[in-house]
């Protein structure tokens, strides 16, 4: 799994490594100068407690570093996602 089209990822389900579904991918932010991918913007499911996460309006922001795998689901490492937030 190396290269994917951005449009293939939109509306994909996002799941953490402990099996919790977070929601669907809404967008990805990038750094235009370095071409690096910065954050995932996730539209959270109704039953998800979003208080633990960094947010932008109604969307959860997860650093792209926390992505473990992308195929049928986007799998993110919850520990890294939260660790990054507290270190900031």
């Amino acid at each position, binding site marked *: *799994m*190396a*290269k*994917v*089209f*951005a*449009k293939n*990822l*939109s509306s994909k389900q996002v799941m953490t490594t402990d099996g919790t579904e977070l929601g669907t991918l809404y*967008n*990805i*932010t*990038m*750094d*235009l*100068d370095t*071409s*690096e*991918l*910065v954050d995932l*913007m996730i539209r959270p499911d109704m039953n998800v407690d979003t208080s633990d996460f960094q947010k932008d309006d109604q969307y959860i922001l997860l650093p*792209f*570093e926390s*992505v473990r795998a*992308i195929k049928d689901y986007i799998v993110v490492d919850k520990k890294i996602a939260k660790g990054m937030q507290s270190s900031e």
Partner: protein
Amino acid sequence: MRAEISSLFGLNVYTNAGTYVGKISDMVLDVNNRKVTGLAVSDINREIFDVPTKGVIIPYRWVITSSDIVIIRDLVNKFKKLEKEAYQE
């Protein structure tokens, strides 16, 4: 500068010589290296791309700047120049 990827969709792509290249329709992401590697460009300028396909993929390293439009390095003319030089030799 940071931007949401989908905000770039539909932007016109020009070279720094002012030649129209096409419109961004998608992006190629390298998930393992966390980078954008390419722009999928459609509605391409057939004068510079002699291809039967709907669009082309342009490496992101050619991008000089992007805001209201995207400007890429003018490699088309560069190739022409190289051809000319080779011919003269």
